[in-house]
C-alpha cells in the first residue's frame, strides 16, 4: 500500500495489517502514538531512561500482540494500557499516595479553598511551575492528569485503562486536580 494511504488509514485498520506482519502499517501507528506512550511512561516512571525502555517494550509487545487487539478500546487506549502496565513493572520511583488518604474537604483547604486561590492561578500561568507541580505529584495523580487533561482521553476509556469504575475514576481525577492546586499553593508559600 502507498505510504500516503497508510498515513491516512484509521488505527483499527492499521492494527489489522500489523497483525499480519505489515511493518509499514505498524510504523504509522508508532509515529502516531509514540509521544503519548512516552509521556505516560515518563509520568509514571519519572526518568527518561525508564520511559524509553517502556516505550520500546510497549511497541514490541503491541507488535507481537496485534492479533489479540479486540477493538473494545481505541488503539491509543490499548497502547497506553500496555505502556501503563510496563511502566508500573519498571518500578514506580515517585511517592505513592499515602495509605490513609485525606478527605476531600482537607484537600480543598490545602488547595486554597477559603484562603487565597488567586495566587495559585497566577502561578499556573507559568508553564514551568505547572510542570514542576505535576511532576511532584504521586504517580497515580500524574497518570490520570496526563490521560484526561493532556491526552484528552474520555472518562470511560480512562476508567477502562486504569481498571476502575467510572465513579472511582472521577473521584481520582478530582482529588488529583485538587492536589495539583495544593502543590502550586505550597510552592507559592515556599517561594
Amino acid at each position, binding site marked *: 500500500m502507498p505510504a500516503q494511504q497508510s498515513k491516512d488509514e484509521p488505527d483499527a485498520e492499521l492494527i489489522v495489517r500489523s497483525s499480519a506482519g505489515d*511493518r509499514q502499517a*505498524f*510504523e504509522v501507528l*508508532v509515529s502516531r502514538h*509514540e*509521544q*503519548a506512550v*512516552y*509521556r505516560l511512561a515518563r509520568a509514571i516512571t519519572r526518568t527518561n531512561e525508564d520511559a*524509553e525502555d517502556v*516505550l*520500546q517494550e510497549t*511497541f*514490541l509487545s503491541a*507488535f*507481537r500482540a496485534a492479533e489479540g487487539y479486540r477493538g473494545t478500546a481505541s488503539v491509543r487506549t490499548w497502547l497506553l494500557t500496555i505502556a501503563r502496565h510496563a511502566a508500573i513493572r519498571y518500578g514506580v520511583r515517585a511517592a505513592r499516595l499515602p495509605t490513609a488518604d485525606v478527605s*476531600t*474537604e482537607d484537600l*480543598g483547604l490545602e*488547595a*486554597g*479553598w*477559603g484562603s487565597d*486561590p*488567586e495566587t*495559585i*492561578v497566577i502561578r*499556573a*500561568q507559568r*508553564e514551568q511551575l*505547572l*510542570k514542576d507541580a*505535576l511532576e511532584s505529584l504521586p504517580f497515580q495523580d500524574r497518570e490520570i*492528569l496526563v490521560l484526561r*487533561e*493532556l491526552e*484528552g482521553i474520555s*472518562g470511560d476509556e480512562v476508567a477502562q485503562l486504569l481498571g476502575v469504575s467510572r465513579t472511582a475514576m*472521577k473521584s481520582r*481525577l*478530582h482529588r488529583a*486536580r*485538587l492536589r*495539583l*492546586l495544593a502543590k*502550586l499553593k505550597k510552592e507559592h508559600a515556599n517561594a
Partner: protein
Amino acid sequence: MAGISCFRVLDKLSDYLDGALDPDEVSQINEHVTACDECRRFGAAFSEVIQRLREHLGEAEPLDSHVRQRLRARLRAVG
C-alpha cells in the same frame, strides 16, 4: 447558607467543570456560588488552573530523535 453546603460544592467541582451534573445540581451550585464568595473564588481558580494545564502542557513535546531512532532499531531487530 441555604441550599447545598460549601463541602458539597467542593466535592462536585470536577463534575461541574466536566459538564457531568444534571441541570438541577448545576442550578444548586450556581445559586450557592452567587452567595458564597469563597466557593466562587475557589471554583474560578480551580477551573482556570485546569484550563492552563491543558493549554500549557496539552501538546506533547516531540520525542528526542535518538529515542525515536533507538525505538525503530529495536523494532527492526524483531524477527
